[in-house]
């Protein structure tokens, strides 16, 4: 019989290396998967993992794809460290986009340089306010924040549909449920002819700030202590309720900002198809990045890479979209598996039949 037995001292080096090992294992399993589908496995892996890195356009698109993932994952990582589980970033992302987008539409034809900062502020506040709902219910009634935040994702999605089918609908849009295209003044500035927008610079800045806060600021200390030793945190005078508000509010604000960047950046309008799962994928990114800001930056880029490469592989090799999803899912699977094996060892116990 096989048993899991905790390792007394998990190797720090191995713990640091597990994400890289997981990526390698995913590539190996991918080779088998693609070969089983009758495709040239080496070519498939090359198209997904390498080619996008050598093509300037693909590189720029990886940044765009990673931007919301990094921003959302950064916010989530603080709560996850402190044992506060915001699973509803997808809803906060939508509410942020909606709040900021409404500002853009309200000033249609009357924009100025002040408009984008105002939209960003509205986006962050929108996402933050929405995340404070589960925080309030948790503090006040001890309602499980995992369930409440997750349920609110669906509410946000339906609210978005209602808004773009009603008050925010494009009056010249043949009754289709989508807003006008935002004015130039309400679109994020981009670099060169790419779609790379200023939001990516903000995401990089956020990584830096998060790193400093986590390691140099008392809030970061409180977060790390709450996660590592909740009882010690309580004795140290860390107010659990304040942590709940701070962590959910922060992750909501960053998710809202990510949503606003998406509609003011590459999309350019509010539409019903806005939620595409970034809020959920960001959970994978947060863990793949070891809940550390720098790690999340790289994890977000790797995740973005598999999306971009996966699309190309679809039309160059006719790989089904589902195979790409399986491939991405394997990444999390291997990460969790290697994590387990880092902390536990498998032992064989000899137990005779009872």
């Amino acid at each position, binding site marked *: 019989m096989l048993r899991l037995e905790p390792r007394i001292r998990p190797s720090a080096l191995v713990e640091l290396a597990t994400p890289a090992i997981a990526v390698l294992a995913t590539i190996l399993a991918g080779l088998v998967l693609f070969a089983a589908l009758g495709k040239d496995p080496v*070519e498939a892996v090359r198209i997904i993992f390498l080619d996008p890195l050598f093509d300037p*356009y*693909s590189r720029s*698109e990886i940044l*765009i*794809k990673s931007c919301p993932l990094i921003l959302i994952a950064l916010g989530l990582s603080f709560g996850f460290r402190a044992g506060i589980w915001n699973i509803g970033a997808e809803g906060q992302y939508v509410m942020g986009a909606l709040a900021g987008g409404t500002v853009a539409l309200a000033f249609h034809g009357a924009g100025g340089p002040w408009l984008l900062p105002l939209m960003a502020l509205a986006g962050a506040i929108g996402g933050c306010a929405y995340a404070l709902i589960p925080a309030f219910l948790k503090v006040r009634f001890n309602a499980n924040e995992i369930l409440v935040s997750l349920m609110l994702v669906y509410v946000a999605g*339906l609210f978005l*549909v*209602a808004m773009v*089918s*009603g008050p925010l*609908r494009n009056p010249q849009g*043949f*009754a*289709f*449920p989508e807003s006008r*295209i935002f004015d130039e003044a309400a679109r994020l500035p981009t670099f060169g002819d790419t*779609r790379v927008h200023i939001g990516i610079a903000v995401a990089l800045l956020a990584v830096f700030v998060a790193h400093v806060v986590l390691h140099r600021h008392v809030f970061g200390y409180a977060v790390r202590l709450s996660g590592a030793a909740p009882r010690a945190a309580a004795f140290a005078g860390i107010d659990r309720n304040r942590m709940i508000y701070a962590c959910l509010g922060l992750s909501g604000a960053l998710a809202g900002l990510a949503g606003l960047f*998406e509609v003011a*950046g*590459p*999309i*350019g*309008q509010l*539409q*019903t*198809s*806005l939620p*595409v799962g970034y809020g959920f994928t960001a959970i994978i990114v947060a863990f793949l990045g070891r809940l550390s800001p720098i790690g999340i930056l790289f994890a977000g880029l790797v995740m973005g890479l598999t*999306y*971009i490469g996966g*699309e*190309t592989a*679809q*039309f*160059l090799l*006719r790989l*089904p*979209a*589902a195979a790409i999803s399986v491939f991405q899912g394997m990444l999390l699977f291997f990460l969790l598996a290697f994590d387990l094996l880092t902390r536990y060892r498998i032992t064989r116990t000899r137990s005779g039949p009872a």
Partner: protein
Amino acid sequence: MKTLAFLAGATALAVALAGPAAAQDESLKVGFIYVGPIGDFGWTHQHDLGRLALEEEYGDRVETTYVESVPEGADAERVIRQMAQSGHDLIFTTSFGFMNATANVARQFPDVKFEHATGYTRLDNMATYDARFYEGRHVAGIIAARMTESNIIGYIAAYPIPEVLQGINSAFLAARSLNPDVEFRIIWANTWFDPALEADAAQTLIEQGADVIFQHTDSTAAMAVAEEAGIYAIGQASDMREFGPTAQLTAIVDNWAPYYIERVGQVMNGTWEATEVWGGLGTGMVQMAEFNEAIPEEVAEEAMAAAEAIAAGELHPFTGPINRQDGSPWLAEGETAPDDDLRGMDFFVEGITATIPN
């Protein structure tokens, strides 16, 4: 000169991207962007049948590619652009939500031709095409009115967009004209594809007494529920008989193959233009699936006659007098609906008691 440069570019790209295997690149490269998975039925499946028909028709002279399950948002533009950049000559983007992304890419690639399904933005190198599904719904409305015993017809609708409203109004007008007691119960699904939700909607409609169910959503869940409950249903996009052998009265089938074959032919012989095509029963873009054997002979003949009259242009499903739901007049006696009214349709006709959410 331009052609030469283009050919050189295409060759370089083909070699670079596909490796030495793609030595002959005389063939026309046609790409498809799908909003869902191809699967075995439904909207995307029907477009893919059109793609396969292209390969069948033109053999080595075309090379087709596709990307499935492309989200209608920031991702669409990238996928379309990468397709344009990798040497495709003609690209079909097959969902309304791809409109702005298609237009953005079309502006950057003036030498590539684009075809966008169900939208309204056109450019010199971007055409639009759509089908008059409401014509099929008129025929299905006739059958539903004749087959219902409870006089309650259920309708699962995706979004309150013109295409869906045209369908509901058309089916309702046809049904009411034959059976003045008929009532429509409408459930808004707010999704094109969600089997669990569609099954729930069908169940709710059955509990409200519906014994014929229309759907303007994409899964076969409602059909399966109807089969189990022993009532009738009308299939959507594909022939769904497999899922409702006794339930399916008929289905409104999308048939894009003739259009795709025609347009690819036009690119080959240089006559392609950025047109706006809105086909229907007449062009074969909309077809009725084989009628259920339970439909009495005279009803089948009546429905078939309507289908043929619509195809021949002798009958328009929206022929006045028709009032809007609020009682205000829309079409006068004998007047037929102008296409622009249909394209921007945002109201129910008189007699429907449901409301349009907004």
